[in-house]
């Protein structure tokens, strides 16, 4: 393995430059000689081992006693027993609370230290309930403890191998295993590992020296370096550009919503004006205005969601109601013979959840301009079992084109434009279709580069029974596009329910193609 030495971390660089082949390399040595922290030293070892620059040549078990924070303060300020001893020796007998206060000791510490002194016959409680010294030498236990503290003061550590058996027994009393705070020492057990520089390490060291990489190169550029100009006095350490990175969680648009927005922008760019409307509709607009007979099977209770309350709209707008009712009954003035049944004026007010986007096209007819092009991407509700291909509610993309002379060929032209611009179709095929509100009716099938042939949408020329009853006397092209399949493909999904998932993780990571 050839090592890119410029990618080495400063901890590795300094270590490599510091050692030579044949030398034993231990943590103790590196910490001492390079002033590394334990963690830094371990990191450098593990990185260099992984790179093959170091090799383990020996390993021995060792036990050591490390000075705790408490031990450090005892070493510096004196053990409680030492302090009480010297206080009482110089100031004479004092009551226990006075001792605690004068020395700033916890009552319990004062108590246990005095207990130790008195048990060894060094101090006692006199008749006035005051502690006094009765022997002018500290107990041996305390003296041994002191000697350990002093011995450890330099390195903060006492290696067990340097102690006699008696000392070992004594220090074990003073040390609690695994870092209890109330002891002066803690026991450290572990392996001393010895490493050697490998040939690979040798090569790396040479390369470092040749390239004059010292490990003292600048890391982060700090504001201070800019202020002082210190950056001019050195070079910057190059970073490994392929180091693993984390992915951030940004604020983001929903990928499906972005897709719908893209479709809206496309349609607006093609000259269509957007419409919108309420979710609650009535039978009049949801069906009657579209010349669907009131007995039509798609208007069954099993196909539309009824609103529980209010059951009925207060009124249906005139003159549309009268004109549509007459059209159903006998064709009114539209040239149709109508459906030949008695229009139900109560049923028509019955409120439903909008079941098709065409409803809004019908609404739009009553306020449309000629010529005019309109579209909506609107939520609809269908009485269906919810599964991978049916949602309780879903978006439909619908629109109309009004014009004095628009005709079938214009409709085909529009469909072709949608197929190419919105669906990226390679081929377009038209077949006759059926919708109750258009005649003629056309389905457009497209060959999609990924999905293959599928039905992109339905369309037609609104029946005169629809347009004339709503006050429009020019032909109206009506179209609807099924863009859900393309949306799923765009998002790499195959279940419609996923489009409206509440799962934050899956929405966060979802991407459009």
């Amino acid at each position, binding site marked *: 393995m050839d090592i890119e030495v410029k990618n080495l971390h400063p901890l590795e660089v300094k270590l490599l430059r510091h050692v030579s082949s044949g030398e034993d390399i231990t943590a103790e040595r590196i910490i001492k000689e390079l002033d590394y922290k334990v963690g830094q030293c371990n990191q450098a070892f593990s990185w260099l081992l992984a790179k093959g620059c170091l090799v383990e040549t020996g390993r021995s078990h060792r036990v050591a006693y490390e000075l705790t924070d408490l031990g450090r303060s005892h070493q510096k300020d004196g053990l409680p027993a030492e302090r009480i001893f010297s206080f009482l020796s110089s100031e004479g007998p004092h009551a226990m609370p006075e001792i605690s206060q004068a020395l700033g000791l916890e009552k319990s510490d004062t108590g246990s230290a005095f207990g130790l002194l008195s048990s060894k016959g060094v101090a006692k409680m006199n008749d006035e309930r005051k502690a006094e010294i009765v022997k002018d030498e500290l107990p041996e236990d305390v003296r041994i403890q002191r000697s350990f503290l002093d011995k450890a003061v330099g390195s903060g550590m006492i290696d067990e191998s340097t102690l006699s058996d008696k000392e070992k027994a004594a220090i074990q009393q003073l040390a609690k295993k695994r870092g209890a705070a109330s002891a002066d020492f803690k026991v450290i057990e572990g392996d001393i590992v010895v490493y050697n520089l490998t040939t690979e390490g040798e090569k790396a060291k040479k390369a470092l020296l040749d390239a004059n990489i010292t490990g003292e190169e600048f890391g982060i550029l700090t504001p201070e370096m800019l202020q002082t100009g210190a950056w001019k006095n050195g070079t910057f350490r190059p970073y490994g550009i392929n180091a693993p990175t984390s992915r951030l969680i940004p*604020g983001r648009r929903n990928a499906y919503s972005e897709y719908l927005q893209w479709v809206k922008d496309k349609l607006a760019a093609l000259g269509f004006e957007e*419409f919108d409307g309420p979710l609650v509709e009535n039978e009049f607009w949801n069906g009657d205005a579209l010349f669907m007979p009131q007995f039509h099977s798609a208007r069954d209770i099993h196909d539309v969601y009824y609103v529980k309350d209010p059951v009925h709209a207060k009124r249906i707008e005139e003159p549309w109601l009268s004109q549509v009712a007459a059209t159903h009954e006998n064709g009114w003035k539209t040239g149709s013979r109508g459906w030949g049944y008695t229009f139900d004026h109560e049923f028509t007010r019955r409120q439903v959840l909008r079941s098709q986007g065409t409803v809004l096209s019908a609404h739009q007819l009553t306020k449309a301009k000629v010529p005019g092009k309109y579209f909506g991407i609107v939520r609809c509700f269908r009485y269906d079992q919810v599964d991978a291909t049916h949602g309780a509610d879903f978006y439909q993309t619908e629109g109309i084109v009004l014009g004095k002379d628009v005709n079938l060929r214009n409709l085909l032209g529009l469909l072709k434009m949608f197929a190419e611009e919105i669906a990226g179709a390679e081929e377009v095929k038209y077949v006759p279709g059926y919708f109750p509100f258009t005649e003629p009716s056309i389905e457009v099938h497209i060959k999609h580069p990924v999905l293959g042939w599928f039905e992109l949408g339905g369309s037609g020329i609104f029946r005169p029974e629809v347009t004339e009853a709503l006050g429009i006397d020019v032909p109206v092209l009506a179209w609807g596009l099924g863009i859900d399949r393309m949306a799923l493909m765009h998002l790499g999904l195959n279940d419609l329910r996923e489009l409206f998932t509440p799962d934050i993780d899956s929405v966060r990571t979802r991407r459009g193609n």
Partner: protein
Amino acid sequence: MPKIDAPEKIFYSLLGRKMSDDELVDIFPVAKAELDGHDTEHHVIKIELNDTNRPDLWSPAGVARALKCYETSVIPEYGFFSSKDEEKDSEGRMVIDDESVIGIRDYSIGFAAKGKTVDDDLLVNLIQSQEKLCTNFGRKRKTIAMGIYRKELIKFPVHYAAVDPDKTKFVPLGMTEELSLREICEKHPKGKDYGYIVSSFPKFPYLYDDNNDTLSFPPVINSARIGAVEVGDSDFFIELSGPILDDLLLAANILACDMADMGFEIQPVKVRFAKDTPYGREITVPYRFQQSAEAELSLVERKLGLPISGDEAVAALRKMGVKASVKDGRIIAECPEWRNDFLHAVDIVEDVMIGYGLENFAPELPSDFTIGRLSPVEEFSRKVKGILVGLGFQEMMYNYLGSRREYIDNMHISDEKCVFIANPMSENYEVIRPSVLPCLLESEAVSGHAVYPHSIFEVGKITIKDESDNSGTVTKDSLGFLSSNAHIGYNEAASYVNTLMYFLRKEYTLGEVSGDERFIPGRAAQIIYNGKAVGIFGETHPQVLESWGCSMPAIMCEIDLDALMA
């Protein structure tokens, strides 16, 4: 959309030749049909029919007739139709409708067929045709019910009358004992399905022959004797009853044509009505009741965008089974006896289009110039979304239907403003969401594994009751956002609102909130804009978090964008 099964043997023989599936896929669109599958094991072709106004296509014979006609331009001729000008010989076969049926189920008509012994396939096929006509076209027998009977057991004339449902008894098909008509409604499976159609009347429709032998209790069930058609029979009487005469005549014509196509000889039956009809008091069925329809040739050109000559239009219509002629620039089209879908001249235009071939119409973009434009709420929503994304929020999208538990119980709100569905399919989808907030909390509930903080929002629609609207409801465009983390509270929520409103250039003040159990009391505020409360935000009440099973504190906010735009 009706779907039918066409046994290969019957279908190919009706077509006159075997067609490959690819051929079928190519030609089916002229009948607005789709190949729905081909069960090669059972030799059945599955066909979906899209035109709900063309019941003649809902049988293998009907589809075959349309395809053959399209291919050959030869319109089939049936010799058995009577008309206002010509009456075929009914040879003593007759149905007499009694006045007692008026207002209950006004008409019964019939025809007879013989000369072909039914086998399993044919019987299944006949039952399928009957079923499609009565269920799909006849609105589940409400407007058309059909019975097929063993003609050799019948003594004509057949009588159709309304009778006492408790005194009239017979053994219905599928049972062995006599039941009264009322008992049939209560006990027989078909009675339970269809009895309701007539059971509110004091008398029920009843069909019997001149020997007083029962044919059926229309529209419910045949008798077990005359009404029990089996494999091996070859002589039939077909009867149809209902309240709309044209629908009955059309259904009779369709079935007569289908049976003729399959090799039966159709025998006319005279019908005496109980009341005056546009065709008189007595007609002979099958009966041509359709009138010719007209369309101006110029309308065809205007609609289709192509100059089409009279001859071309006539040829195109012939492929669709429609005899036509052109006079003074007008197409006069004879609707075939098995169709009745020419409501308007545009229906003729469409037949011309299909017959002429869609591939012959070159697409051409409309030439009118129009200005494209997004809706104001879409434009405003995009601004709002942009700001929230900048604030680190993830946009979400949710269903608009949910359960009472989610939208109401978990939110600790009252249901008085909520719009419920009268006929929910399941309690999971029984109410339109009154707020975006429960949706955001549902996300919280299912996303404990997602790295915190969670900052999510949606701009979408909500619906609540509003007495002032014609519908008693109002749909609003609403922004909801929610942020959850270990250290989040009112101040963060207020800062988000402040930042959002600053960039939207909306001056607002805050108002106290009281009695809103969704928020911790004293840690929520109303957003007042133009003197009107347009939103609310604050710390989510732990009882709400607990109801949803959320374990992270959350702030949330909802703003009525329509009110903010006003």
